[in-house]
């Protein structure tokens, strides 16, 4: 005989009464686990969709408007390339995929195209200082970039430029061309292409995007700077910023860092994600509040009834020499077991619900999240212990004599 056995036997003796409290905590935890699980994957999905839309923060020269940028894609104003370095070396959180660009007009076979200089990812990584700034290693959970989601779609390497504005590697003599450029010039991968007097090799023809990118020729930024004879300048930095940070004033912080540039954000896009994420987390909090109230009240009610029902037993144990600590432990251990069982079963049920209903409700694949089991147990045990503390204390403080009702 030990305390655990005593508690265990009592729980099974009165399992019908216990069932209501167990169900309350089980269902509560299951709903919150399901909502959290679906929310997590929904945020990932939203992030992926937003990511497909491209950059959400643009750094432009002061005189250029966002409309100019999108309609003409070219402007005469430039700013120093050193701005990129300033951003990379800053301690600003929430910056992903910095993509500096310099676009110049070119004519090939009597047709006008845009030669756009970009900086490949390898260029950033080669500069240890920049890599150390964490631009490419900075985690961006649920925000602005493609996260590794098991089973989720992974982009083809050459689509990375279109989607993320980042290309791994690009030498001084290589170009990537948009779909329209390829069609109009009749150029394929591996062909040579003369641009502004330099011969480049076409390493890839990008897939059709339906945007101005289809008539672009992407080359190394420094090659374009050299060919345009403009020195180390750029005319835009595209940034995929984390929405949370953007709503937390990232734009103002970049503005402060680069006072001579104009920083604009595609607020609508950002707002969408911020609103979605906010709604999901508020929903999660609401459910959590409900289970704390309903589950907690149900457990407290059950425990008070249990203490009342077991007065004589408590009095007997006290008569046999049990101190108040033993009685307190007896009820708190029961609460702990109830919380553990509720947390584990709630996690299992919630995960099954999320995996089964996620694709139907949110249209996204949902996978189990083992990390939530600790969260579920923690919340469940905390609610059970908190709700049982006062009933347990009442039991421990019972007058042993009054409980025996034999006066």
């Amino acid at each position, binding site marked *: 005989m030990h305390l655990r056995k005593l508690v265990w036997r*009592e729980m099974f003796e009165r399992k019908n009464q216990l069932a209501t409290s167990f169900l309350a905590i089980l269902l509560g935890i299951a709903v919150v686990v399901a909502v959290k699980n679906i929310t997590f994957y929904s945020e990932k999905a939203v992030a992926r969709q937003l990511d497909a839309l491209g950059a959400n923060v643009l750094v432009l020269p002061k005189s250029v408007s966002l409309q100019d940028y999108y309609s003409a894609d070219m402007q005469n104003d430039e700013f120093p390339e050193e701005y990129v370095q300033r951003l990379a070396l800053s301690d600003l959180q929430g910056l992903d995929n910095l993509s500096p660009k310099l676009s110049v007009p070119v004519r090939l076979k009597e047709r006008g195209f845009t030669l756009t200089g970009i900086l490949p990812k390898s260029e950033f990584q080669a500069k240890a200082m920049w890599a150390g700034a964490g631009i490419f290693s900075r985690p961006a959970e649920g925000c602005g970039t493609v996260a590794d989601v098991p089973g989720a779609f992974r982009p083809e390497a050459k689509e990375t430029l279109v989607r993320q504005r980042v290309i791994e590697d690009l030498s001084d003599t290589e170009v990537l061309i948009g779909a329209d450029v390829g069609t109009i010039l009749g150029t394929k991968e591996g062909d040579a292409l003369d641009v502004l007097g330099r011969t480049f090799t076409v390493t890839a023809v990008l897939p059709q995007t339906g945007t101005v990118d289809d008539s672009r020729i992407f080359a190394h930024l420094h090659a374009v700077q050299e060919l345009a004879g403009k020195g180390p300048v750029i005319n835009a930095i595209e940034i995929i910023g984390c929405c949370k940070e953007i709503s937390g004033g990232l734009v103002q912080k970049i503005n402060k860092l680069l006072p001579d540039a104009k920083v604009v954000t595609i607020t609508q896009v950002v707002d969408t994600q911020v609103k979605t994420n906010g709604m999901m987390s508020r929903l999660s909090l609401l459910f959590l509040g409900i289970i704390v109230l309903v589950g907690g009240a149900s457990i407290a009610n059950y425990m008070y009834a249990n203490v009342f029902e077991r007065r004589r037993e408590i009095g007997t144990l*006290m008569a046999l*020499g049990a*101190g108040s600590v*033993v009685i307190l432990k007896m009820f708190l251990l029961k609460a702990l077991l109830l919380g553990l069982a509720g947390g584990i079963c709630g996690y299992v049920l919630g995960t099954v619900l999320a995996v089964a209903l996620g694709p139907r409700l949110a249209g996204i694949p949902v996978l189990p999240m083992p990390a939530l089991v600790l969260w579920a147990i923690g919340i469940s045990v905390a609610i059970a212990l908190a709700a049982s503390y006062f009933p347990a204390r009442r039991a421990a403080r019972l007058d042993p004599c009054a409980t*025996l009702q034999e*006066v």
Partner: protein
Amino acid sequence: MRLEAVSKSYRHRGHTVAALDNASLEIVPGDFVAVVGPSGSGKSTLLLVLGGMLSPSAGKVFLNGHSLYELSPNQRAELRRQKVGFVFQTFNLVPYLTALENVQIPLFLAGLDGPAQKERAATLLERVGLGDRLDHKPAELSIGQQQRVALARVMANEPEIILADEPTGNLDPETGGQILDLLEEMNREGRTVVMVTHDPRAAARAKRTLRLHDGRISSASN
């Protein structure tokens, strides 16, 4: 065990009821005392006060030299565990535990390990003639068997003092006689027994009898 001018009163519907009224008493080790008196005379109150379960309104109670009610409730519980065994009229067995587990409770409270608890509890149940009922729950035992389990539980920690409240009150004469035999046996082993009873035949088995009336110890006879 000594009571010095102990009074205990309750408020009941606005009236003060004296359960014990200036009661003084000394019980020497190895005594077997029967406490008799009409219902409501304070017999059970006396027993609970002696066992450290009910704080008196006035006066002092000494147990092995300790002023019982100057100790904290937890210290009194510890003293009860070591020195006192209670036998109740309604047995007060824990309904969801088997006979063996019920007897194990005081041993578990004393910190004995599982195998030692089981061994001792089984021996005690054999002694009260229930060696073949170890795994029966109280509801599966007769009234007399339940009281014998309660007696085995009392003996578990080898208490110096046994306080029995109407131990034969719910039993037929034959079973009651068996319980009294066991109490006498415990007394012969040197334990002090204080037994509240309505039953003159039970009282006659004690070494001396205290009569209570309106909370006062009115007479003592041998």
